[in-house]
């Protein structure tokens, strides 16, 4: 899981059975003491693998939206919640946005979710028993062994390996972040990658690197941007690697812009 704190925004991304939305009220409260008021919110997630294990307020998207609605100041008017479908029931993208006004920036966000990781690739995220290393040290080893460092070569990487397995990484590169989280256990292996960019960035190179590190059987890519320019580059980057696009859903959110949700799977599936 990861947290990024900018002067004017906070991004928090958590997995497992965390209760992420319980952070909204205390964050609004603490920001208020700094003379800051909430101007927009965006909540996204994929389909849980084990939805029955999720605690309140995450037992359903409906419950999450109700909790968010109750937590937000009334001034956030432009509200929208949507479940963006794919061809399979196990993959859909849940989005809630709200804001005080419509002011879309020129930065896009890419959120990638990968499942059924290649076993050899996933195996690199297991620690050796009693390796005697700290989480930071073991994390550095994993970053190097997997080639993760080559995804954003100019980024400063803060990595951590969990015991006995699992990995989290935050990359910081100027004012841009990237983050990776890995759950490598066979049967429910999962990895995510997320970053931000702007027009002219080599998104295709980054997508290819990510796919090559994890070699997933299935991959979903969500892009959020003011325009539709970035999403078209996703398929042209991934399909030469054997990942065929199976679905594409587009929705407009007044507080966030255009969200495009595409799913891919390898041709063996």
């Amino acid at each position, binding site marked *: 899981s*990861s*947290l*990024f*704190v900018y*002067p*004017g*925004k*906070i*991004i*928090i*991304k*958590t*997995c*497992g*059975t*965390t*209760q*992420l*939305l*319980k952070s*909204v009220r*205390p964050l609004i409260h603490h*920001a208020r003491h*700094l*003379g*800051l008021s*909430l*101007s*927009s*919110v*965006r*909540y*996204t*997630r*994929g*389909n*849980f*693998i*084990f939805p029955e*294990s999720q605690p309140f307020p*995450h037992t359903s998207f409906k419950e999450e939206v109700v909790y968010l609605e109750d937590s937000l100041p009334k001034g956030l008017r432009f509200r929208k919640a949507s479940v963006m479908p794919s061809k399979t029931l196990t993959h859909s993208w849940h989005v809630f946005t709200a*804001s005080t006004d419509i002011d879309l920036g020129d930065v896009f966000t890419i*959120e990638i979710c990968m499942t059924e990781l290649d076993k050899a690739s996933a195996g690199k995220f297991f620690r050796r028993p009693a390796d005697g290393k700290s*989480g930071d040290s073991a994390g550095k080893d994993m970053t190097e062994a997997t080639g993760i460092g080559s995804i954003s070569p100019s980024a*400063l990487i*803060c*990595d*951590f390996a969990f015991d006995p397995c699992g990995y*989290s*990484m*935050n990359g*910081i590169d*100027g*004012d841009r972040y990237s983050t990776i989280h*890995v*759950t490598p*256990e066979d*049967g*429910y292996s999962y990895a*995510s990658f997320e970053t931000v960019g702007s027009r002219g960035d080599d998104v295709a190179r980054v997508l290819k690197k990510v796919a090559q590190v994890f070699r997933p059987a299935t991959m979903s890519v969500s892009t959020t941007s003011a325009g539709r320019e970035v999403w078209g580059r996703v398929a042209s980057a991934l399909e030469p690697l054997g990942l065929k696009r199976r679905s594409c859903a587009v929705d407009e959110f007044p507080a966030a812009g255009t969200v495009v949700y595409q799913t891919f799977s390898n041709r063996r599936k």
Partner: protein
Amino acid sequence: MAVSGFEGFEKRLELHFFGDDPTVMDQLDGHKGLLGLRLLDFDSLQQVLHAVQCTVVSAVGNHYFDSYVLSE
């Protein structure tokens, strides 16, 4: 598929704030070095993370923002 394991799929939340003082808002938009939310003390962040059921395991920052790797 395993019957039960660790949930990999994340929940992601992004919150934007503006300053009650209009000049502060301009500075936040331009990232002109104003600390804004970065002034939140670590105890406050831990309190928020406690509600989420996470803790900080590693941290790094630069001129623009602070980054924390969390448990879970």
